[in-house]
């Protein structure tokens, strides 16, 4: 009998020190792998369109790739291409891209919907914007654009001069592909939104009710689609893209979003970031996170308590304090535009001591304040009655739907990119990843409340570090060329832990100073898809609560 601790079981293709052996993975897939590509973040296996499901199923079951992080679709001169960005919930640094080229004339590909539920929406988006058809996708219809939109705007032969939307009567039967709700005479169809107090923006839930209970819910999104990806493709890497991320998740989570672009572009163009700037970034990002969570908690309470209650106003008051801190730092209250490739825009505000004192005061004020939230919310019996055991999202479902952030952590999935795929200054600091096994609305709210405490811890440590930083070593930006032109066909997918979860950016450079393809993996988009799991069979108020607990921002869902 061995006295050594048993070795943790390794997935196929995993080396004992936690890296990936791509050769072994290629052997696992055998003849399915036609070619291998080198992306900056991972290797890409090129496969045939008809073997998508087999390959992904094998990778999921045998190699442990249980997280379909994103799907990027794009058109080249000679082909269409779908890239499935795979990761592992256990270790997101182990990444693999599955590249599926399809013919220009007939872009038909297999679907991953049978392996990952999250693929349904991702493929719908790819179909909608790029025009690739995914056979076997159970619900392949437009997702962001109106049903009667003509053509696929990101395909090369898209005619921009034609009428973009036509009336329904000129359009092929729009109801043809629609999933049918069981035809029961005692159900009622009701449109919740796009103008409804509980949808937190312009979300439209096509809901079928049986009395007060939800039989079927189908989120209709795209009302706030602003072509953010396209706009980023029009801007130059160096300065013109950075303002856009602030506008995705515009609930004061701007710093976190900016980091996602900064991280992807810096890795793509091999830019170093000075340590000092990383500390400032970490501090700013955590301030953003608290501000975003404050609003999430406040609006969640709004959904459950109704109208304007004390909790909503309290959380807005506290968010205001953070916005003041962020304003002192960046000059802006919402659209910060504070990060730069290779650092941040400018140093901490002078006088530094005064700023540090303000931040410290806030960190000291936070725990008492959180106590108050716990008194008003989590220890309130009526609140518990409303949210415990409602909106259940089991961990298997959460993984399959690609849920991340507090939604996944509220389902007991221990996944946080700040710790698992470290960036910035996080790995030098002491803090905990909060998880809760409740899987219900309560757990998700609780995780957010506790995360704020951890964020305050991080901020406090950052202040300590910044205070002691020698004055002549305060380098806020590394030396970055004025024009950035990454090599032709260099591809990268990088994610950071934003307020709502994993915010990923895929960039393909085409040799110019602008991205050839810019794709945003929005955490709220993926989380929202899981609403149907939480809501079906529940009462209307519980669906509203579940939606509130998902904490979506339509700016980020629709992009």
């Amino acid at each position, binding site marked *: 009998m061995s006295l050594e601790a048993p070795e943790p079981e390794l997935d196929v293709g995993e080396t004992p020190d936690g890296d990936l052996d791509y050769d072994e993975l290629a052997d696992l897939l055998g003849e399915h792998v036609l070619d291998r590509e080198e992306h900056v973040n991972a290797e890409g296996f090129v496969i045939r369109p008809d073997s998508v499901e087999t390959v992904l199923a094998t990778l999921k079951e045998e190699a442990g790739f249980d997280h379909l992080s994103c799907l990027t679709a794009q058109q080249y001169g000679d082909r269409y291409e779908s890239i499935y960005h795979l990761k592992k919930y256990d270790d997101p640094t182990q990444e693999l891209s599955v590249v599926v080229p399809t013919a220009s004339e007939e872009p038909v590909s297999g679907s991953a919907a049978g392996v990952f539920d999250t693929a349904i929406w991702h493929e719908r988006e790819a179909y909608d914007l790029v025009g690739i058809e995914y056979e076997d996708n159970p619900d392949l219809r437009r997702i962001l654009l109106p049903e009667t939109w003509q053509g696929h705007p990101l395909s090369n032969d898209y005619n921009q001069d034609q009428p973009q939307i036509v009336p329904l009567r000129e359009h092929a039967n729009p109801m043809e592909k629609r999933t049918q709700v069981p035809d029961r005479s005692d159900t009622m169809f009701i449109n919740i939104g796009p103008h409804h107090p509980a949808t937190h923006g312009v979300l439209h839930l096509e809901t079928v009710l049986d009395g007060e209970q939800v039989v079927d819910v189908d989120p209709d999104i795209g009302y706030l689609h602003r072509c953010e990806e396209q706009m980023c493709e029009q801007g130059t890497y160096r300065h013109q893209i950075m303002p856009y991320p602030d506008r995705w998740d515009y609930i004061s989570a701007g710093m976190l979003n900016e980091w996602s672009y900064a991280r992807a572009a810096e890795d793509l163009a091999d830019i170093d970031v000075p340590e000092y700037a990383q500390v400032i970034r970490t501090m700013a990002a955590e301030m953003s996170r608290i501000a975003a969570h404050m609003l999430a908690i406040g609006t969640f309470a709004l959904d459950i308590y109704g*109208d304007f209650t*004390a909790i909503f106003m309290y959380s807005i008051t506290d968010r205001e304090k953070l916005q003041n801190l962020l304003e002192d730092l960046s000059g802006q209250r919402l659209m910060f535009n504070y990060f730069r490739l290779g650092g941040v825009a400018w140093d901490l505000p002078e006088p530094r001591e005064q700023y540090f004192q303000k931040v410290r005061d806030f960190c000291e004020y936070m725990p008492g304040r959180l106590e108050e939230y716990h008194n008003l919310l989590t220890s309130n019996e009526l609140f518990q009655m409303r949210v415990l055991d409602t909106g259940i999202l089991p961990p298997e479902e959460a993984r399959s739907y690609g849920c991340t952030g507090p939604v996944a952590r509220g389902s007991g999935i221990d996944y946080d990119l700040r710790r698992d795929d470290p960036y910035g200054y996080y790995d030098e600091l002491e803090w905990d990843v909060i998880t809760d096994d409740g899987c219900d609305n309560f757990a998700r709210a609780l995780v957010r409340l506790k995360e704020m405490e951890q964020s305050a811890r991080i901020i406090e440590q950052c202040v300590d570090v910044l205070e002691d930083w020698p004055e002549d070593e305060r380098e806020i930006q590394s030396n970055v060329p004025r024009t950035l032109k990454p090599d032709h066909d260099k591809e990268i997918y990088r994610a950071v832990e934003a307020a709502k979860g994993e915010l990923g950016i895929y960039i393909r450079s085409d040799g110019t100073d602008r991205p050839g393809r810019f794709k945003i993996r929005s955490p709220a988009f993926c989380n929202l898809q899981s609403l149907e799991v939480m809501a079906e069979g529940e009462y209307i*108020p519980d669906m*509203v609560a579940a939606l509130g607990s998902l904490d979506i921002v339509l700016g980020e869902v629709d992009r």
Partner: protein
Amino acid sequence: MTLAETISSALGLEGAVGQFVGGFIGAAIVGTFILANAAVAGPWAKRKITAAFTDRIAVDKLGPLGIGIIIPDAVRLISKELIVPEGVDRPAWDIAPLLIASSAILGFAVIPMGQVGPVEFQLADPEVGLAFVFAVASIASVGLVMAGYASNNKYSFLGGLRAVAQNLAYEIPLILTGISVVIFAGTLQLSGIVDAQQQTLVDLGPVGIPAWFAIVNPFAFILFLAANMAEVGRNPFDIPEAPTEIVAGFQTEYSSVYFVLIYLGEFVHIFLGGAIIATIFLGGPSGPGPASIGLLWFLVKIWGVFLLTQWARSALPRVRIDQLIEIGWKGMLVLSFANLVLTAIIVGVIA
């Protein structure tokens, strides 16, 4: 001397004509008085109270503490366009707001509101006073259903259905608890119930604790308070409205004057609930000082109940409809029956 008699004698009228004119003008005075209370409560007090709970300032520009906002708000609300949606079921849609507002005011006809000087503010004092109050207060439910059903809107429809379910679940415990008071007092007449609470329960030297039914039977009092919350549809039982779920439910489609009427009706209803509580549990208009300031004490009590509803609105989550039904039928109904039986036994043993 009652209000009607005072008026008729001041006008020098006698007999049936005097009764009619006195009663008519008296009713107008009482109605206006109650509406004035609602006017203070709606555009001003509600805002101020909620603001105090949520660390805000609220209206403060017109008049002392911003109380002048009532006039511009009234003009604003009444001068808005009355939007009549397509396909609403008229005249049910038009009658509903009238019914909601008037039924609540009607209840005040029998409430003993105390004295101002020598004048007794109570329009009528029938033998079945308490039954009358409960009966007219329940008419509002009919108004809610009419509004919900006639609006041709699915949210309103859901709101109407919820209103029925809720009122059925709560009216019975409410009335059963009221009956326990009737057993104590031995009469349905409201003035009789008030009189029954006038003795001193415990004499603590200079201060005497009065025999208010809230003190004699606190259990029934709390039960009644809770049921009343549901009856007037305030948090945690504002389920028929539930703005974040069904977008104000039965009142979604109402604007302008109809909206004002519905809101007014709700506020008057809160005050009527407060008036019932004050009358049957808190000794009506009795309080320290001479009987001639009774109306003041009555006002303090009904505004106290109003404050309670606003407090609940700021701090308590709304329960779900199924939970409400459960609380109503499985909890409150059982408790109120237990209360009723216990009261009957105690009263039977003592008497």
